[in-house]
């Protein structure tokens, strides 16, 4: 990449053309010295999308009052210290999760539509289809700058046996990240594996041995490409999809290697012990993954991360907080107060993990401020009422300063049925990835930076 001192703000560029057409991302538009430690330039915005399944009990989530004078409700108490760093957004909807004649399967549709705004195709396998997700739109742009275009993480491993949701492939509930309409990104739940992805698995984690390892990988990738080419000649065009996926994967890793070589001089790997396996307890596991998230953001290994605190439709039990019933079972509470209370307890426990992450980011210096100042973390679920499977009035919190683009400390209520995708488009825009349209978006959302 050529680093120029002068960079065009993309917005300006678009206005200059007098058009709103989305344009391919040009190198000239990349903020020069975007990486935080490369200079005094403004640090890049980091994006995070944190998902919780099965909706959130509204009575516990919904803040009292609106605007700057709002009061946190019980579920979000742990976020009180970060009140000024966050927004609570109400009234947003992800109606692409509705059935539209496809019958049951609200959980699958919720998971697959959250960041895509696309109604997913009902299928067990052969022909998966949703849409590109917001994180991946950002990843395509930021991927030019960082070794990892994005990371897709989770705390709960995919189910080992049995179906997931009513005639939908498990891919729809296992991830919220879609590289393109037909390729869901698998999530990584093992902190050890994540650590090795980020820092290499050589005998030493120092930059030199990591680099040597990467060069070895380069030659292997060349060999693999040759193999794919030979296979391709044997196959008809329709059968090459898997091979295309493979070639994409190869290119992605090659790009990373190239990037790593480029950055090897300036890269300082933060110190962290190689974790053992995943802790059994939910909070310990989630926090370990979050520690790694912070390191990945901090060292600018990536700027885009999705994190599923559990997969959609999860029936995990949280015995450590006294909920031995499965989460999904609890959410179908049929107004049983005991089950509602248990669900709310789980909701609160999830938010506490968000608070852990936010606190950590607030205490991590980044350029002229903190990591939190330069981040936008979307937290929420693609269902509101898990009992009724409603896809409107979703629980949404937007945390972080967004590099100055967000003004926190408020609860904003939007008109009913405002597409969640409008918020996603706004987030992309504010992080320097202007996007004309994503899924069912109808425009951008207002008031995020109101004074």
């Amino acid at each position, binding site marked *: 990449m050529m680093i120029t001192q002068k960079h065009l703000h993309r917005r300006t560029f678009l206005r200059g053309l007098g058009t709103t057409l989305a344009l391919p991302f040009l190198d000239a538009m990349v903020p020069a010295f975007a990486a935080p430690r490369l200079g005094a330039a403004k640090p890049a915005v980091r994006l995070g999308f944190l998902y919780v399944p099965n909706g959130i009990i509204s009575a516990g989530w919904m803040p009292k009052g609106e605007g700057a004078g709002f009061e946190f409700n019980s579920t979000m108490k742990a976020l009180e210290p970060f009140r000024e760093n966050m927004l609570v957004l109400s009234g947003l909807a992800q109606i692409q999760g509705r059935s539209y004649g496809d019958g049951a399967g609200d959980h699958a549709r919720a998971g697959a539509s959250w960041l895509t705004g696309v109604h997913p195709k009902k299928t067990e396998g052969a022909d998966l289809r949703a849409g590109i997700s917001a994180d991946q739109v950002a990843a395509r742009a930021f991927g030019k700058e960082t070794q990892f275009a994005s990371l897709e993480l989770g705390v709960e491993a*995919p189910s080992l046996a049995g179906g997931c949701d009513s005639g939908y492939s498990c891919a729809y509930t296992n991830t919220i990240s879609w590289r393109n309409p037909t390729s869901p990104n698998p999530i990584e739940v093992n902190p050890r*594996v994540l650590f090795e992805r980020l820092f290499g698995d050589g005998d030493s984690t120092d930059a030199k041995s990591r680099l040597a390892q990467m060069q070895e990988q380069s030659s292997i990738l060349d060999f693999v490409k040759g193999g*794919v080419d030979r296979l391709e000649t044997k196959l008809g065009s329709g059968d*090459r999809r898997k091979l295309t996926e493979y070639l994409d994967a190869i290119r992605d890793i090659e790009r990373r290697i190239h990037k790593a070589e480029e950055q090897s001089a300036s890269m300082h790997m933060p110190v962290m012990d190689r974790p053992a396996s995943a802790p059994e307890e939910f909070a310990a596991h989630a926090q370990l993954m979050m520690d790694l998230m912070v390191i990945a953001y901090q060292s600018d290994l990536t700027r885009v991360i999705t994190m599923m605190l559990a997969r959609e439709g999860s029936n995990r*039990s949280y015995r450590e907080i006294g909920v031995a*019933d499965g989460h999904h079972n609890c959410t179908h509470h049929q107004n049983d107060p005991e089950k509602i209370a248990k669900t709310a307890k789980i909701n609160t426990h999830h938010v506490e993990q968000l608070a852990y992450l936010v606190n950590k980011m607030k205490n991590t210096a980044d350029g002229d401020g903190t990591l939190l100042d330069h981040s936008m973390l979307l937290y929420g679920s693609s269902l509101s009422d898990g009992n009724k499977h409603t896809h409107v009035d979703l629980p949404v919190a937007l945390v972080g300063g967004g590099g100055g683009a967000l003004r926190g400390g408020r609860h904003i209520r939007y008109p009913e049925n405002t597409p969640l995708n409008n918020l996603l488009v706004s987030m992309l825009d504010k992080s320097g990835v202007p996007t004309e349209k994503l899924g069912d978006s109808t425009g951008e959302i207002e008031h995020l930076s109101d004074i």
Partner: protein
Amino acid sequence: MFLRHSGPGLLAALIVSGVVLAPPGLGQTQPDGSLLLKQYCVVCHDNAKRTAGVTFQGLDLSNIGDNAELLERVLRKVKTGQMPPAGMPRPDAARRAAFGNWLETSLDAQAAAHPNPGRPAAVHRLNRAEYSNAIRDVFGLDINPGSQLPVDDSGYGFDNIGDVLSMSSALLDRYMSVGRKIARLAVGDPTLKPGEEIFEPRREPNRGVAPAVPARAEWMSDDLPFDSAGGLSVRYYFPLDAEYVIRIRLGVANAPVKLAPHEFRLPLKAGPHTIGLTFPKESLKLELAAPAVARRSAFVSSVRPEASSAGMDLRVDGVRVKRFPPDADGASPPVLNMGIVGPYNPAGRGDTPSRQKIFVCHPANRSEETKCAQKILAGLSRRAYRRPVTDADVRPLLAFYQKAREKGDFDYGIEKAIQAILVAPDFLFRVEADPPASARHNPNHRISDVELASRLSFFLWSSVPDDTLLDLAEQSKLSDPQILKQQVERMLDDPRSSAFVDNFAGQWLQIRNLATVRPDPVVFADFDESLRWSMQRETELFFESILRENRSVLDLLTADYTFLNERLANHYGIPGIYGSQFRRVVLKDPDRGGLLGQASLLTVTSPPNRTSVVQRGKWILDNLLGAPPPPPPPDVPPLDATTKGAQKLTLREALELHRANPGCAVCHKTMDPLGFALENYNGIGEWRTKDGSSEIDASGKLPDGTQFEGPAGLKKVLATERRDEFVSTVTEKLLTYGLGRGVEYYDMPALRAIMHQAEGSQYRLKDLIMGVIVSTPFQMRRSADL
């Protein structure tokens, strides 16, 4: 599965309208099919209502081919008596049967004349289990490397579905990383720097939450001596002939460790060894060395790290190498974790099973090296790629060898070439290509013998074909029916076929989920890791016995035997079973036999703290009868009466109230009775006669009037009156798993043929498996449309 879509609303006014009358079809005289549809079905399934998306108006019964998809649905509904629904006018049984038979014969004849074998994915990635087994079989390295790969997505209930198994950069990253480790271990890398691998005992889930739970001092693992209690056993692959340090940290998680860890340094030969930590029982003086049992996993068991006043023994391959004395105060704290540190002072690469497998030649001097490398790599890539290899395959591998040979020795060159093989698309993907367009005279083709070898080995072994299969395939002999049969029998007798039990039965019956269930310790204080493991073992051994002894699949339901150890026998209340080893036990109690009496299944179909009649009923419909009910509509009205009023309703009463709502009744009237029959088993499979204070009533009545009582009664109904549905479901699951794709309507004639063939032998499992293997969809493949 395509038959899942049954519609809820079934009420409509009677409308008679046009169904095109059919001429006698395909050599069979059509009974009054069109008339029957007109009289009984069009009432709901007309163009206006299209109940469940189905209309029979304008349906031409003489054109079976174009309507096969719909007619297969009709056939299933008519044969199982689901349509016309109870409560609506129905033709008498004889007429229904005649229509069903005609339809079935016509569909089968149509399929015989115009077969459609379907198209499994052309590019089919190995899943985690297959990857691990391939590494074991190609390189002689049994270390379960698949556990380091992300969990595969599944579809149709299995994780070997070609279309669902995708590729991403995250996955390729892992393949490269894991491949590098495998190559290093397989060859042995003397430059390996010492590192520490830490193993933690799995925490007892009930510990700390229910402190009253008594610790069971029992023998915990096949790898530990019989006279030990608790401990930790790890099967670890030592990379080199070298010295290693076993480091044992004592203490409790989250509590500061004040004690220095116990350490012991010892020389070990390269290869797999079992490292065990045990607490000897003082009362037993006898030392019995337990042989190390080869396991697939690197981490064989994780068991209770109990303290003992007799100190702690460190064992290698079952032999005690060191006894650590207890503390001065007589007690030793529990094990926090165990580290394996090394290698130190490596003495050589050793003589491991994988080196024996890889190095088929040993060059005496430099001039022989290239030829030997070529030989090694040709052999390895043939097995890894599962096909004959050409110079074009070996040349790039040889280039890796040569480049590395410049930097290191011969073995290092081979290591680097192996590293390349492990990410080659030819290894990671199973490929089935269409014949060239010029050679296509027919939309279908018989798959090649080489493709057949892989279909067989991945079906029965979840692994690559061995040399015997590949040799036969390369000589085009494998497709010979006689040889094929011999080979299938050989494969099923081979220990590798235990993968079929793990992967097919484990997913079909959902026993895999046992690993992650978390029964509530307050309600089920008895549940612990040992019980979890015993439950799983029982079902594995049971299913394996049905396979090995080629028993009828109906025995899965009705067998009068099972496999128990003392722990599980106590759980079931069966006296006289002592010790931790499993043995075959004949059951006197007619309720306990068969899958439906096994704790594994009863546990995975229960919520953490109770039973669920609905969940168990649904499980039976989904997995045994192939008639999954549609999921409940959201926002189910609350069962007000359960909380209102003076007295609390029993579960049965509450569900009866629920069924008063017609929207709920459609499904619950079938699900609930099935589940109620199992109510005598609690959420972890113990027998009970009361639920709380109310007596269990385990009687049930299905919508068609079938009545039964308790588990024994339910099993009888499933194995007799519902026999065809059950066998058909098992066959469909086998076909799905065997093909790695969903079963479609055009597969139904093949499915019926498999069943018919096995009918004479009472549906023996191996006969069904053989039926799948010789079926059209397994032997043939449809090309893509040109």
